[in-house]
């Protein structure tokens, strides 16, 4: 993993995670890193310059929300904060400081996409407790 190259553009979101009502919440951080080449396929529908840095921030936010909702049926309450941009140097340092960090790699035709998660998440305590009452991405609920 030490040879893994971190893509150019990254955003991170810190979160707290409570794995039970009694347990003290643990802090963690989710990072999404994308290769610059991936931005060449973004659709620019207007004259405004596509905001690629803002886009990766927003994608990180949406990814954190999906994970948060996926954890709910396992009794884990994740509370993400607001996402921010992070440099490749900072991420390299983080990788050294947190050797137990989980790294997920996705391959695209334009380079690798990395998701990194650090935090004391106890997977043995993730026990399915039934479906959570949450909507799905893309849902429209008119009152």
């Amino acid at each position, binding site marked *: 993993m030490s040879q893994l190259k971190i893509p150019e553009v990254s955003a991170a979101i810190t979160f707290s995670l409570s794995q039970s009502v009694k347990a003290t919440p643990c802090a963690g951080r989710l990072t999404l890193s994308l290769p610059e080449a991936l931005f060449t396929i973004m659709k620019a529908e207007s004259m405004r310059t596509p905001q690629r840095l803002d886009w990766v921030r927003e994608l990180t936010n949406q990814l954190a929300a999906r994970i948060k909702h996926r954890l709910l049926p396992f009794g884990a309450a994740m509370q993400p904060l607001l996402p921010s941009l992070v440099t490749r140097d900072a991420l390299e340092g983080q990788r050294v400081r947190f050797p137990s960090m989980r790294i997920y790699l996705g391959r695209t035709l334009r380079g690798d996409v990395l998701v990194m998660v650090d935090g004391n998440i106890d997977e043995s305590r993730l026990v399915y407790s039934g479906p959570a009452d949450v909507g799905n*991405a893309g849902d429209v609920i008119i009152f």
Partner: protein
Amino acid sequence: MKKVLVVDDSETIRQHVAEALTRVGFQVIEASDGAAGLQRTEQHDFSMIILDVNMPLLNGLEMLERLKQDPKTAGIPVLMLTTEAQRSMIERARQNGAKAWLIKPIKVESLVSTVNKVLLQQGAS
């Protein structure tokens, strides 16, 4: 021309929403957080407000509550456009007077159709 206020801390989201609504004839004003959004309501008369939930300074649910407490803005229909999907939060928005909850990412066609439906409902009531 009907004015719509879009409040979201993501410029990308604001840009997508603004492009979609401008294309179908709305004038769109943007704000990057709830506090700036409230300021815009003092400067313009809006036909609708589209609100993110998780934003700096003043979040979308807090802004919704402030809007509904102020007689000048209480009648403006509000749509929530957010990654949040928990029913408890959706119910809180409904009770505070929001007209719809859209979970990101959302198709542009769904957004435009919801805006039109809610405005039609508003006109009929």
